[in-house]
Every structure is written in structure tokens, then in C-alpha cells.
């Protein structure tokens, strides 16, 4: 059943979410669970427009409902959590299964490991990803090695750690961090980051039911902002499978979570300049889907990775290195990394710190420009290529002459056909 839904959801061109209100919205405004209309899909399951925290809340309801050995806990979880993700759970499932913990992250995760080791689903919440570090030892030395060190006699696969991460406009040092890369260096845990409500529900249920400890980082700027139709039923989305959410020919962009929205905007802008971008949501960072990324880069010959976390030692570095290993001869240009700066997350400088749309767009253009062979020249129609505003060879040619010679089409909007030296994979 799950796989059926998985297939249906998993291949949807994923950028269905729309933005409500301003780009950044205060997390302190009052709750307004979206009440938009219900629709019925052809397969019979009901869909409803909900925001991200509501989708997560639905997943937690389902997890508790479908497994009597599932527990949800963390700081301030009983009253619904500071981001409202656990609202209604304590009332419905009782305080033995949904409860507040003392203020102690190492305790939360350590407790969760023990609970999970006894065959339970321990769904723990860290209030902000910025506060996960006291639990670092429990995650890295304990959860990640529980199975390995015992020769698979024991495991804590029922462990899921949820934590809101990322920029939110006013979070400063300790309410903005994206710590995913630390955990991607830890064999034995999985790291998953959803980009919107529909993905969040399916991926969270997969994390909870996955037989390995998982970290699930939720883009907190989207809790209220991202609204989309989410099936009300129980469904799971596959882990370790990336999703191409926008197809393109000239450059591959890889990202995850909230960062995909800035990347998507840049893709749209680039398209106006005739650059066709392929956008991949990695979804699971560990273990990650190299094949999807590799196939895409082999097609486009270019790669840009983008994340909010500092560029140095970020997960983008791992992607760049892997692509260099697998696609070296197909790469037309250096891999671009548009990421957070190598500073702590700064409050007032957030707009400068973030890898925003224009930084990504500039990098897309310069990557395309700096290519070893001209993306435009590789089009069959050399005339069109030379007219293109970003063709680096343009300056050397008398462009006016070309136009006069009876080539009326405007270069940027014409779709190039695949050519032998630049096959387009279908």
C-alpha cells in the first residue's frame, strides 16, 4: 500500500508548494491551520491543503496510531511544541506516550536510544537543531554504533530525532543553524530533510519506520509558510532517493529543504536568459542518491550545489567531490558551491550571509560562461548560439551580420536539439 502511494507521490514534479504571504514570516504569529478545501484524488484518497507543521503533525498522529509502541517526546512537546508540531497528540494518545522531557538534549537522545533498543519507535524532538549539540555524543558514539558494535545483536533502529533547522529571518546564532553536515560524517545514522508539507509527511513516516536511527531536520521557516495539498492517508516516501523536481539541460542544481525555494527562483530567472536548469532535491543526505545526481550531471555537464550551512566542510563538498570522481570527463566547468559563509549565523547580516537567489543566479551564469566548450556552440545551430547573450564567443563575432543573414529567431527562447557531443538523456 505504502509503495503504491510512494510511487504516486514520489514522481510528482515536486514544486507544487506555494508561498503564503511574505517570504519570511514570524514564527511567533498565531496558529492558523490552513483550512482550504479538501479534494479527492483519482485514487480515492482525500487531500487537504495544509502547512508544514500540520503535515508533520499528521505524520506523528499516524505513527502513534499505527504502532502502539511508538512514543513522542521532547521539551515542551505536551502542549503542542513551540512550533505546534505535536499539537493534540498528548490529548489523543495520553501522557505515557506523548510527554515533556526535562531540558536536556543528551538525556532526550540517550533515553530515546534506550527506548528504541527495546523495540519501540522513539520519536524524539530537539527544540531547535541549534541545541542538538549536547546530544552529539549520544548520536555519534551511541546511536550510530549501536548495531555495529554489537555485531547486530542490538540496534536502536526505532530512533527518530526531529529538529527544526535553518534561517528564519530573525534567529541569530542559536535559532538558525543548519547542522546537517556534522551528522553526514557519521556512518550509522540517516539524515533526511524535506522541502515541503507533502514530502515531510511521507519522509517522516519513512524515517520513523526505517530500521535505522534517523535525523529529520525540518525547515522551520516553512512551518507556516509552505502550504500544499497533502494526502490525509498514511503514505511513505522512499529514503535515499533524490528527486528531480525540475528538468533541464544546461546545469544541474542540487539542494535540499528550504534552500530549494531560492534555487527554484534562480532557475526560473535563468530560464529567461535561455539557460535550462535541472533542479534536484536530494531529500536524504545520508546515505545519498549519487546515481540521480550523476546521471543529471552527465547530461548537463555542470553542477551547482547550494546550502545554508557554511561552505567549508558543508555537505556540498561531498557532492562536489563525488561528482568529480564520477563525472570528471563530462564536466564542462568547475562545480559551483553557493552556500552560507564561513561565519557563525549572524542576526542582522542574515540577508548578506544567505546563499540567495541572485548569488545562485550569478553562479549559474558564470558556470555556464566559463564552460570549456560553449553550451551554445554545442547547439546544432551555431548562428543561434553566437547570438546568445551569454555566449562567451559572441564578442569575437560580427553578430549583426548574422541577424542580417536571415536568421530571425531569437536565440534565448529557442530549444536546442540534442547533438552528438552533448547527448540529452531522456
Amino acid at each position, binding site marked *: 500500500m505504502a509503495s503504491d502511494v510512494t510511487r504516486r507521490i514520489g514522481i510528482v514534479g515536486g514544486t507544487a508548494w506555494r508561498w503564503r504571504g511574505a517570504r519570511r514570516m514570524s514564527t511567533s504569529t498565531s496558529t492558523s491551520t490552513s483550512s482550504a478545501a479538501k479534494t479527492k484524488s483519482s485514487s480515492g484518497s482525500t487531500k487537504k491543503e495544509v502547512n508544514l507543521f500540520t503535515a508533520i503533525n499528521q505524520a506523528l498522529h499516524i505513527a502513534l496510531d499505527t504502532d502502539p509502541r511508538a512514543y513522542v517526546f521532547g521539551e515542551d512537546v*505536551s502542549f503542542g511544541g*513551540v512550533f505546534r508540531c505535536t499539537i493534540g497528540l498528548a490529548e489523543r494518545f495520553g501522557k505515557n506516550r506523548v510527554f515533556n522531557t*526535562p531540558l536536556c538534549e543528551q538525556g532526550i537522545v540517550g533515553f530515546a536510544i534506550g527506548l528504541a533498543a527495546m523495540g519501540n519507535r522513539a520519536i524524539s524532538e530537539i527544540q531547535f537543531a541549534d541545541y542538538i549539540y549536547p546530544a552529539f555524543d549520544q548520536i555519534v558514539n551511541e546511536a550510530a554504533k549501536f548495531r555495529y558494535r554489537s555485531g547486530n545483536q542490538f540496534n536502536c533502529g526505532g530512533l527518530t530525532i526531529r529538529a527544526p533547522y535553518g534561517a528564519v529571518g530573525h534567529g*541569530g*546564532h542559536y535559532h538558525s543553524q543548519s547542522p546537517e553536515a556534522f551528522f553526514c560524517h557519521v556512518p550509522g545514522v540517516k539524515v533526511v530533510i524535506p522541502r515541503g508539507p507533502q514530502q515531510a509527511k511521507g519522509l517522516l513516516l519513512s524515517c520513523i519506520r526505517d530500521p535505522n536511527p534517523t535525523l529529520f531536520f525540518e525547515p522551520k521557516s516553512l512551518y507556516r509558510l509552505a502550504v500544499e495539498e497533502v494526502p490525509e492517508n498514511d503514505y511513505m516516501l522512499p529514503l535515499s532517493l533524490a528527486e528531480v523536481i525540475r528538468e533541464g539541460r544546461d546545469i544541474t542544481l542540487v539542494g535540499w529543504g528550504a534552500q530549494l525555494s531560492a534555487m527554484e527562483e534562480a532557475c526560473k530567472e535563468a530560464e529567461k536568459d535561455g539557460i535550462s536548469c535541472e533542479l534536484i532535491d536530494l531529500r536524504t543526505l545520508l546515505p545519498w542518491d549519487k546515481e540521480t545526481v550523476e546521471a543529471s550531471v552527465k547530461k548537463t555537464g555542470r553542477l551547482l550545489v547550494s546550502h545554508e550551512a557554511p*561552505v567549508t566542510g558543508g555537505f556540498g563538498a561531498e557532492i562536489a567531490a563525488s561528482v568529480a570522481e564520477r563525472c570528471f570527463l563530462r564536466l564542462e566547468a568547475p562545480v559551483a558551491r553557493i552556500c552560507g559563509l564561513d561565519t557563525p549565523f549572524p*542576526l*542582522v547580516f542574515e540577508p548578506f550571509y544567505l546563499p540567495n537567489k541572485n*548569488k545562485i543566479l*550569478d553562479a549559474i551564469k558564470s558556470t555556464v560562461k566559463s564552460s570549456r566548450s560553449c553550451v551554445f556552440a554545442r547547439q546544432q545551430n551555431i548562428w543561434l548560439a553566437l547570438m546568445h547573450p551569454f555566449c562567451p564567443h559572441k564578442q569575437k563575432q560580427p553578430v549583426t551580420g548574422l541577424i542580417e543573414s536571415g536568421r530571425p529567431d531569437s536565440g534565448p527562447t529557442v530549444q536546442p536539439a540534442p547533438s552528438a557531443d552533448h547527448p540529452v538523456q531522456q
Partner: protein
Amino acid sequence: MAALAKSRTLIYNLNSKLGSLGMLNRLTRRHFPSLTPQILASSDFHYNNSPNLFVSRHFESTKAQTHPGSLHGDDDQLLDFPGGKVGITSQMRFISETNDWRVPCYRVLDDDGQPIGEFVEVDEETALKMYTNMVTLQVMDTLFYEAQRQGRISFYVTTIGEEAINIASAAALSMDDIIFPQYREAGVLLWRGFTLQEFANQCFSNEADYGKGRQMPVHYGSRKLNYITIASTVATQLPHAVGAAYSLKMDKKDACVITYFGDGGTSTGDFHAAVNFAAVMETPVIFFCRNNGWAISTPISDQLRSDGVVVRGQGYGIQSIRVDGNDALAIYNAVGAARKMAILEERPILIEAMTYRVGHHTTSDDSTRYRPVAEIEWWRNSRDPITKFRKWIEGNRWWNDEEESQLRISTRNNVLEAIQAAEKLKKPPVAELFTDVYDVLPPNLLEQRKSLMETLKKHPEEYPQDFPL
């Protein structure tokens, strides 16, 4: 031993003066439903009154000799163990999880501002400075809170209900003492001379903010006032305080360290690490716990099951006292005494101030979601620490209604002026985004700064305009 005996006497004297447990309020009663005390009837097992010889090393090194006679085993026979000698008992008894009485809180003024016992006399000038500071703190909180509601600042934390804790504890310290704060002790900084303008500059993240706009509002810090910059992370400052106190001790300074934290903070690993380190290193540090009953929405009963925090002191072998956190004079006395002991006897002290967080946790919180409005209002109206202190100074004929209204009007104006001035100042220069990560900029940051400046030149319209480069 002498020191221990002395301070125990002190506590017992206080007990007798306090008489009943007047402070046991609705909050604490409600939150300890399951703590039915299991009294150890046996008279030969007075562990409550015995010095804890497992930590004898600590006491030996400060003052006293181990005193076998004070052990209460079956027959005064002692067994030697690595941590010291222990007595023997043939009765298998588990130590109760709690005392048969809750530790009372030390109080100087009753609800009507009448002294109920002896206390260190506070002169008129100090008393009035304490009072005006408490009022200033309250007015500042009210207006900054409103400024946040109006969208002029992004975030704020009030100290409402905890003004006495803030001001009276600060008043009992010397300026050489070093503060390692949490986020709800702006009043300590106010007492030390941080101006309203300095508070406003930080909250508005302008170019005059010492933190260069990098941290959220209320994350103050002042080198000149010995106030270490605040971090949002709960209780991480506690071990720092111990290390700093060790330094003061090594340097033979006439100063101590005080660190503040909430009831929630006592659950962290850092709390346990810090108190234990302090005991073992014998550092002059005061652990000041503001037990306000709540950690965001988490009530104290979901946080701990001991008799609050004060009893933890003994578990780690350090002295502790519980005070009425809404009684400025009690706090002033307790902190003053703790300071002396910390410095002269080179020992840590734990203070638990019982109070109530009258405000919401922060501006991101609506506490009526998880606690009754009536409860909040009761504390605001019946237990306000400022009102109580006012009654006392008015009783001394040091204060009157006219002075009160003048104070409130002028403070209000001063705060509004500070807000307006802070708002007018520019933001810190963008170049400050890259400084202070290290002492100097390493190559990666030089490169990133260059690239950002190019981006800003290229797309000025995409970025906020009120930042100089």
C-alpha cells in the same frame, strides 16, 4: 567542620525565625503531588543531621577535621573507604527520596513589607537605588515588549516578576565580581550601570551595539561591567563560571563569580558538571537558580522531582540556601553572605530563589496556552516584588506617592528616548559580518568578503539599504 557547623547553625536560626513554611505557595504545592515524604523513624539513622563524610575532603581542605563522633551508625564503628570513613548499620534502609519537610525559603519581609526577622540593614541610598532600578527594569521591559509587538525589534525577553532577583542580587555584589548570565537578568546589568541607551542599541542591532548586531535582542554583554555576553543556549555558562572562579582563586582576588540560570537549566548536563566541578575545585562561585516554576511550557513537576534545586547542593557537597525570590531584602542578604563565604572560604554556594515567571517566556510565546490567566494575575497582583519593596521603603518614610509618579514618568520618557535614538542609528557595517570569527580574517573569509562586496555592487537593490559597507 567548624565552618559547616557554623553555617548549619545559621540555617537553623533562620528556620526558627521563619517559623512556619510561609512560602509554600500554590505553585510549589501543586507541583509536588507525588512527594509524600517517607520518614525514617529510626533514631539511630539521622542522616539528615550528619555531615556528609563522603565529601570530607572538601571540608578538610577548607577548615575542619574529620570528626568520627558525628557519625550515626550502630556502634560508632567506622569502615575505611577511598572517599573517607563511613559508619555501619545493621538495618537495611533506603534513604528517602525527599526530606520529611520541604526546605523553607528565607524571607525578610512579609507580603506587607514588614520585616519578620533580623537582616543586614540597608541604608536609604542603597534601598532607593534598588527600588528605582527595579522600577526602571519593569518600565524598560514593558516598553521594549511593546516595541517588539509593534515590529520595531524582532524579539524580547522580560524579567517581569523577577525584578527583585535581578536587582537585589546585583546590589549585594561588588563590581569586581564576574557575571555569567542566562537571558533573564538584564537587571543585573542595569544595576552595574548599563544605560538604557546601551540596552536599546543592542535590541535594535545598530552600529553602537557592542555585539555588532550579530545576536538576537537581549543578548547583552559588557566587558567594562564584567558581564559575559549572553548566549541563547541554556546553562552552557555554568561550567564557564566555575573555570572563571578558579582563576579568581588562583589570582587571590577579592572577588567571586555568580552565574544565573533557570529551573529548566538545572536539568542540563552542564549544570551537574559545573556544580560538581565547583565542589571539587573549591571555587568561589555562586550558582543562582531562578526557580520561576516554568521552562517555557514545562512546569517544574516535569523538570525535576527533588525538593526543587536547593537540595541538590548537598548531593554535590556544597552549601545551599532557598530564598523568597520576590523579597529583595532576603536576596540581598543571602547573596551578600554567599559572596563572603565563597571568597573567604573558597567554596561554591547554591542559591535557589523561588519565584514565578509572570511574563510570557519570550515574545515568541503565549503562556495562556498552557497556564491559567488567573494564576498569572495572582502573582502579578499579590506577589509583585516591587510592590512589596515599595511598602517597606514607604514604611521607612523614604518614599512617597509623588516620588513614585515622578519616577515612573521620567523613566518612561528616558526609555522612549533611548528607543527613538537607537532606531535612528545605522546598522553595523557589512564588513563586520566577517570580523571576530577569528582574531584576524583568514584567507577564506577575505575571499568571501571580496565576493560579497562584488555581489553588493552588482545587485544593490537586492539587499537592505541601511547598512554601510
